[in-house]
């Protein structure tokens, strides 16, 4: 039991004592007598008698503290003045603790002040940047209006050319239909029944001839014939494409508008999708390419794993079995399973990126490709030699254009050039508008973090967070997504990233970055408190405030005054 002075509590000094919760009144001599009487523990401020009591340490020279009663008289020193234990048990360490706390406070105050100055710069810069962006937006709006005029003018000419060509094509198609009917009588390979991709499997039905087509070569309209000559031609195309890829001449066709490989369905698209999947069952060309580019694709890997498990166990080596059983416990992907790339499917379905194309082409180089006839997506962007090859193929096709270079072509080129320039301007406008819409904090101070990334080394990993973008864990070349930007949380004291790479049998990875004031941006304390839920802390001047700096400075002065008066006593 410890003597307490009740001054700080404002309690009566005699008579009866009403428990602070108002539920009971007890005899005054029962207050602080090392026996708990009040439900709220308020009668025992100086002992451990009440399970919910609070003990007050004055901690002169340091900060006063309310301690759980459970820590009073337990032989372990908690208050720096040692008042929670019997005399002689604890050393008074308040002077040291106070000095250290004052030093830390001072440091914090300085950091806050310095950070607050920087924050002013951030705010000014943000204003400037936003003004620039606004100007840029206005400029873009003007350019777009001008460009739209150009496009409109050229569209008239372009459409006239198309009409002319349509008529020409109708004639040619009549010839082609006859040829198709002749070919249809030869045996046709049945597509897709064994899951392998044959030429026929990915070639669509011949319905296109009914549609008015321009001079764009729609390679999806390759004949569904299976004729040897067509196959040969396709192989030649593929071979040429491979060669082109091998020479490193890969180049996106979308940078060369007006070429003759454009789907008629989407004339406005600024990139060229040479073929859509022929039907729902057929694998997209890119998927096939991806298959070729991996030693084993995820489907096959899964299938094979399943098979392995079904097989007699003696087929497993001891090590394999051990790894499988261990994996069962620790739920880890087996080491030879392919690393999941969540975006893969989306990419396959959507925009083709140069990298993917190059990879696919390289893979084809490495291996004998399946017998594809259709010009697959992976051949896009392969440059001149590819286009030549396509043209060679197209020439073979009876209804192909007989004279691709003409004045008409010049008109079309012009139209597409302007069209694409407009699209690019619109893209820039939309990008700028997105940037303008983002939340940069109350005064725009967090705009300074836009486009920046911060890293922290922890063990063998490097953690990287890019505000407004994403977070990742990097281990050499391996790159695991910890989520994409979800915005600020808790009044700009944290940033959230979610929807990262899936944990095996677990959640998608996520990262929560708490923010506090600091002189510089510094990412630290990266932790994974729960499986696949990451946390980190970022200091930044953007989180500083001059008000807080002033407050801290007052605290520093107050602390120094207090210690001077304490020393004088």
């Amino acid at each position, binding site marked *: 039991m410890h003597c307490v002075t009740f001054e700080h509590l404002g309690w009566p000094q005699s008579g009866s004592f009403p428990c602070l919760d108002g*539920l009971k009144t007890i005899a005054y001599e029962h207050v602080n*007598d*090392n*026996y*708990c*009487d009040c*439900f709220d523990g308020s009668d025992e401020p100086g002992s*451990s*008698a009440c*399970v*919910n009591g609070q003990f007050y340490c004055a901690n002169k020279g340091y900060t006063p503290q309310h301690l*759980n*009663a*459970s*820590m009073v*008289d*337990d*032989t*372990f020193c908690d208050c720096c003045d040692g008042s929670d234990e019997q005399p002689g048990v604890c050393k008074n360490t308040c002077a040291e603790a106070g000095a250290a706390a004052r030093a830390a406070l001072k440091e914090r105050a300085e950091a806050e002040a310095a950070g607050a100055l920087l924050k002013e710069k951030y705010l000014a810069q943000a204003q400037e940047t936003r003004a620039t962006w606004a100007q840029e937006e206005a400029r873009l709006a003007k350019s777009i209006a001008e460009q739209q005029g150009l496009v409109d003018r050229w569209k008239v000419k372009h459409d006239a050319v198309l009409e002319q060509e349509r008529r020409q094509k109708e004639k040619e198609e009549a010839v082609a239909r006859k040829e198709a009917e002749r070919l249809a009588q030869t045996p046709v390979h049945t597509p897709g029944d064994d899951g392998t991709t044959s030429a026929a499997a990915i070639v669509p039905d011949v319905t296109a001839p009914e549609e008015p087509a321009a001079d764009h070569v729609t390679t999806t309209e390759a004949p569904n014939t299976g004729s040897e000559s067509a196959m040969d031609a396709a192989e030649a195309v593929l071979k040429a494409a491979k060669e082109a890829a091998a020479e490193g001449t890969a180049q996106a066709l979308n940078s060369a508008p007006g070429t003759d490989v454009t789907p008629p369905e989407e004339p406005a698209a600024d990139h060229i999708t040479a073929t859509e999947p022929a039907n729902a069952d057929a694998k997209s060309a890119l998927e096939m390419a991806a298959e070729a580019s991996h030693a084993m694709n995820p489907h096959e890997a899964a299938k094979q794993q399943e098979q392995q498990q079904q097989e*007699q*166990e*003696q*087929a*497993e080596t*001891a*090590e*394999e*079995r*051990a*790894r*499988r*059983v*261990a994996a*069962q*416990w*620790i*739920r880890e992907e087996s080491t030879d399973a392919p690393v999941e790339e969540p975006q893969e499917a989306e990419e396959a379905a959507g925009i083709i990126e140069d990298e993917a194309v190059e990879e696919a082409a390289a893979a084809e180089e490495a291996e004998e490709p399946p017998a594809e006839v259709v010009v697959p997506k992976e051949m896009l962007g392969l440059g001149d030699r590819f286009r030549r090859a396509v043209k060679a193929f197209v020439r073979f096709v009876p209804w192909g254009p007989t004279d691709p270079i003409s004045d008409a072509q010049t008109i079309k080129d012009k139209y597409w050039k302007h069209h694409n320039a407009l699209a690019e301007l619109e893209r820039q406008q939309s990008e700028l508008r997105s940037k303008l819409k983002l939340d940069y904090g109350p005064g725009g101070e967090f705009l300074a973090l836009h486009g920046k990334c911060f890293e922290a080394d922890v*063990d063998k990993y490097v953690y990287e967070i890019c505000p407004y973008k994403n977070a990742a864990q990097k281990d050499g070349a391996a790159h695991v997504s910890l989520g994409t930007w979800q915005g600020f949380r808790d009044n700009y004291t944290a940033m959230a990233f979610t929807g990262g790479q899936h*944990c095996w*049998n*677990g959640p998608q990875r996520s990262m929560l970055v708490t923010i506090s004031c600091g002189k510089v941006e510094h990412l630290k304390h990266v*932790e*994974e*408190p*729960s*499986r696949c*839920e990451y946390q980190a802390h970022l200091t930044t001047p953007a989180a500083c405030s001059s008000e807080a700096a002033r407050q801290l400075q007052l605290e520093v002065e107050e602390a120094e005054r207090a210690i001077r008066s304490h020393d004088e006593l």
Partner: protein
Amino acid sequence: MEDFKKCTDAAFCNRLLGARDEGYYIDPASVKVFGPAVNAKLLNKATGADFTLTLKAYKGFVRLLVDEDASRKRFEVPGVLMHDLESREGSWVMKAQTSESWQLRCGDAELQLRYSPLQIDISIKGQPVMSFNSRQMFNFEHKRQKQEGDPEGWWEETFKGHTDSKPRGPEGISFDLAFPGMQHVYGLPEHATTLSLKPTVDLADNITSEPYRLYNLDVFEYVADSPFGLYGSIPFLWAQKLGFTVGAFWLNAAEMFVDVGKTDAATFTNWVAESGILDLFLLLGPTPAKVSEQYAQITGTTALPQYFSLGYHQCRWNYRDEADVRQVDANFDKFDIPYDVIWLDIEHTDGKRYFTWDKNLFPDPVKLQEDVASHGRKVVTIIDPHIKRDPGYNIYQEAEQNHYFVRDKDGKDFDGWCWPGSSSYLDMLNPEVRSWWAQQFSLSKYKGSTPNLYVWNDMNEPSVFNGPEITMPKDNLHWGEVEHRNLHNLNGALFHQATAQGLVERGKAVFGSDGDRPFVLSRAFFAGTQRIGPIWTGDNSADWDHLRVSLPMIMSVGIAGLPFNGADVGGFFGNPDAELITRWNQVATFYPFFRGHAHLDTKRREPWLFGEDATRRIREAIRARYVLLPYIYTLFRHANTTGLPIMRPLWYEFPEVEATHGIDDEFLLGPALLVAPVLDAGAESRAVYLPGTGPWYSAKTGEVATPDSSGALSVPVTMDDVPSFLRGGHILPLRERARRSTAAAKHDPYTLLVALDSNGQAAGELYLDDGSSFAFQRGLYAHRLFTFKDGLLSSQELPGTPSRYSTDVAIERIVVVGLRQPASSFSVTEVGSVKVLQAGAGPVVLAEGVPESALVIRKPELPIAGDWSIRLAVTA
């Protein structure tokens, strides 16, 4: 489960389970009595094979031994039987002898040995209780030469691609044991199933489920109701009918299956083991406590645990690094939740090389342990039995050079896979290996360890990821060319024992001759493990089924002589929600071993992570544990001296109440506290059965509980409630102050909670010692006896104890419930003193809303370890 064998997958079980042979008979001329032993020659008519049979009388039990002649040495389980077993021997009194049988008597028990076919019937006070071979299922596969045309499975068998070469051929043993008039059998752990074992065959001997299997296995995500074998095995079965409780213990460490069949007339059991000998102890009871004592006389009692180890343990696979450990430690203080031990799982090591530390994650383990210990707490590290085959690893290197590893059938060091990858396994059958292993725990050898570090032995079944059934091949060879099949179920206990021995030796080196009690948690266990340390029920799951089954599992292991055990709180696999984790902690308050643990893939689940309400309730559950610790420690002292369980089935205390015999969703903590925890999601009430005539008092209000005439009571519950009842006639010693650890409570005063029986009487005990050393073995302890009778509450030393422990700790509160007159009408005085003690009506627990139903004596300041008496007198 497809990784694991059923009876039909094991050749010996296939041959022997349910197999009858009427041809076993005793040669009448061979029967001889030597003091406690009857010796006879047992023969088989068809094969002509002969065996030795010995029937030995002990005080309270009978031992039946059958073996082949010495030319075929069979394995006998070492180290389990107590050294002083001989001192328990009784002697046979001949009652009658004919050409067909002998009738013998020993104490209350009568035994008839019939010659042909062999049969042994035991009755107690004229009541038949056990019958051996009444169904002629005894088989003993004798030594034979391998011949062309031998049945499949005799000399080799294959399971899931693993071939077991069986150079010794068939050597299985089976027998049937009937329990006349008994409807309930219990025990035979470890299984995740009901306490009263469900039949596995029907009346017509048709198989209705797999037999209960005893084979120590690392079962991934075990299901909550199954007869399959788990991590430990104790071939000890209880059987009960009104007035008679008996037991049967087969000392055999080989793979075993047991069928249970029930008819109106009896419960039949059929036991088969793959090898070893028949060494069967028949325990004659006739009360549950007597059966426990008899079993303890055979295999020993529970080691007196470290006091701290009865507190709350916080474990997780894995506390990542030093900062994580410090953070968790600090949070317990911040949230004012007591705990005693923080645990480090396998990730703390350098590449799963035990006795090492990951230098990045745990750069300064000594400082870390010192900091944790600065609040009286301890650290546990995991030390598993698989040794990484790494020539640069000193443990491997030494063991390899000294030939300390188990060998494969070709004589090479066995190479199996576990956490570190390719591993070898120490041969703990070899005493030299155990002794060498023990030395590794010295502070000088175990770098980074301190006296505040204790140990956890996991995976010691042993778990071998690429072995048959995730364990070791049976034809592996141990010391003395013993095949692994013979000692499989003992393997983990030997490892556990060697580890505990290491801590005993460390304690003596650090603290002198009184030393320091070891604390080593094991997953695998066998008969006798109680002498080493606690076990837990392995890798359970975060669901309500696993919460429910934890009670029968803990009680089943407990009545099998190993009461220091518990289940992972919250469930190892999966993520409990706030309700489940709250309820689980509320149940675990009463687990003999109380540890929260979680799998690597689970979300963090320290007690403060489920919202304010859950944090408060979990805090209360853990604090309730600390309040009960003086009572629980006293229960452990009884387990230590006589072998009584801690968490007890209702029938254990009320065998005379038949309705209790099938209950396993309630239990008693010791004799005095009945708990009917909430085991269902969303419960609004709990159906409780209160046995006997009571009175029972609500532990929450102190008021008398009033069940209906059948003993049933429906108790409304909120998330705060854990229906529990004080048994009239008992006094519980408590420590009510909140503390952060057991060490922090060392000087705290006590409360005595007196619950009167219908005669206004009560009694209780408190065992006191230093809580950590072996000084109690030289009498440095106090064992207090509190009695209340005729208004006089007295404290005295339990007769026959040395009372050589002194403490100045006092009693701060005495609470009496069940007084006939209003509490306000009493005046309380200390006998021999004029001082009137402060007393009056008060609540049984100080909390808002609790009725003032008890007499509360305020600050009597009586010495907890001193003699005194106080008198309650009615003044009005």
